[in-house]
């Protein structure tokens, strides 16, 4: 095995580090005297746990500096990321033991909640970094997204040229479906592959703009025309057109899937980073407020 994922970096060295950290934190928690008040952040053990947690948070944010310092020789970024994942997960336990499960509507719990959001968005990021690259390259079958678009444009051109040789209703439906195919869109549309495409259905006397989700409706229109084809040549053209439209549908589906997978691969960072900044502010407030009311 030449390639190693970041979870198995150096035989999962940082997994053992984080397990040691968790065991140490549990020991500290268990040694708190329980005669006066339940375990909390105010005993010396609580302060130690809190200091470890705050330093961990600061160190975890340093990954963003390290990964941009390309010339740095302070370890490999893969090692840093591996440690970031394992120690960041351990932080969940450290901070929970520090607060002693005492929650309230205050800045302390706010910091805890922000930390949980950051960690769980990180879990999602880890999941997508492990799973999605394989899915993306399978979906593209080794090519680039630009190749999929090139194939789509070629099919568009062929389908439009062929539709011109068929009945006018078919030509209008195919031409308008190509023009009104929508790919991408807003965040929601990208992440859930929503198709807001349309096409024009022209019946000679009237025409209507109809939804063309998944490019299926326009294929149905062409297929409906097939039994009523006038000449032998039109039937052959319509069959050829259906083949082209189905290939086009498959390419559009693949592009949408590519956009969706890439979207999920990136969306978590749009939570992870701003929430980290908010966490740093809340953490600073938590520390200042704690000593102010001491």
């Amino acid at each position, binding site marked *: 095995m*030449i*390639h190693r994922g970041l979870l198995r970096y150096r035989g999962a060295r940082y997994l053992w580090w984080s397990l040691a950290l968790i065991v140490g934190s549990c020991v500290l928690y268990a040694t708190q005297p329980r005669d006066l008040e339940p375990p909390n952040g105010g005993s010396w053990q609580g302060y130690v746990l809190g200091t470890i947690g705050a330093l961990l948070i600061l160190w975890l944010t340093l990954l963003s500096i390290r*990964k941009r*310092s*390309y010339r740095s*020789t302070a370890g*490999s970024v893969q090692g840093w*990321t591996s440690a970031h994942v394992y120690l960041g997960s351990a932080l969940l336990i450290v901070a929970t033991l520090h607060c002693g499960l005492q929650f309230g509507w205050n800045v302390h719990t706010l910091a805890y909640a922000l930390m949980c959001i950051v960690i769980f968005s990180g879990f999602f990021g880890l999941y997508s*970094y492990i799973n999605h690259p394989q899915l993306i390259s399978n979906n593209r079958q080794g090519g680039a997204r630009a190749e999929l678009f090139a194939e789509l444009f070629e099919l568009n051109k062929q389908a439009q040229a062929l539709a011109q040789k068929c009945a006018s209703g078919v030509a209008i439906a195919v031409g308008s479906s190509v023009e009104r195919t929508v790919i991408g869109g807003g965040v929601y549309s990208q992440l859930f592959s929503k198709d807001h495409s349309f096409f024009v259905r022209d019946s000679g006397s009237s025409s209507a703009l109809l939804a063309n989700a998944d490019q299926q409706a326009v294929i149905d229109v062409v297929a409906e025309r097939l039994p009523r084809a006038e000449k032998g040549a039109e039937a052959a053209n319509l069959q050829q057109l259906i083949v082209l439209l189905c290939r086009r549908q498959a390419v559009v589906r693949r592009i949408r899937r590519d956009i969706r997978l890439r979207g999920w691969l990136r969306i978590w960072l749009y939570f992870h980073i701003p929430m980290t900044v908010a966490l740093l502010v809340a953490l600073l407030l938590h520390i200042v407020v704690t000593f102010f009311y001491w």
Partner: protein
Amino acid sequence: MVYEAPKKPGLWSWLLFSTGSGPGEQPDYKPGAAAKEKGKKAVKCDACVSVSGGPACVRACPTGAAIRIGPEQYVDLLEERKR
């Protein structure tokens, strides 16, 4: 063949004051008179010979997707892929 690029600003001045091009970004610059005087220079990957610790691209890859291997390891990699 390129002209010599001006020195990049530090990471913090890029982060806080957005001076210069960021890490990994193409530097956006016009070569100055001094750089033009010096002439163009051939640019080719030298696997970071001057940097201790090996190629920076491998050390900067967070997921371990970039690896540097010798020809004999490459054969192993292909056989592993086939399995």
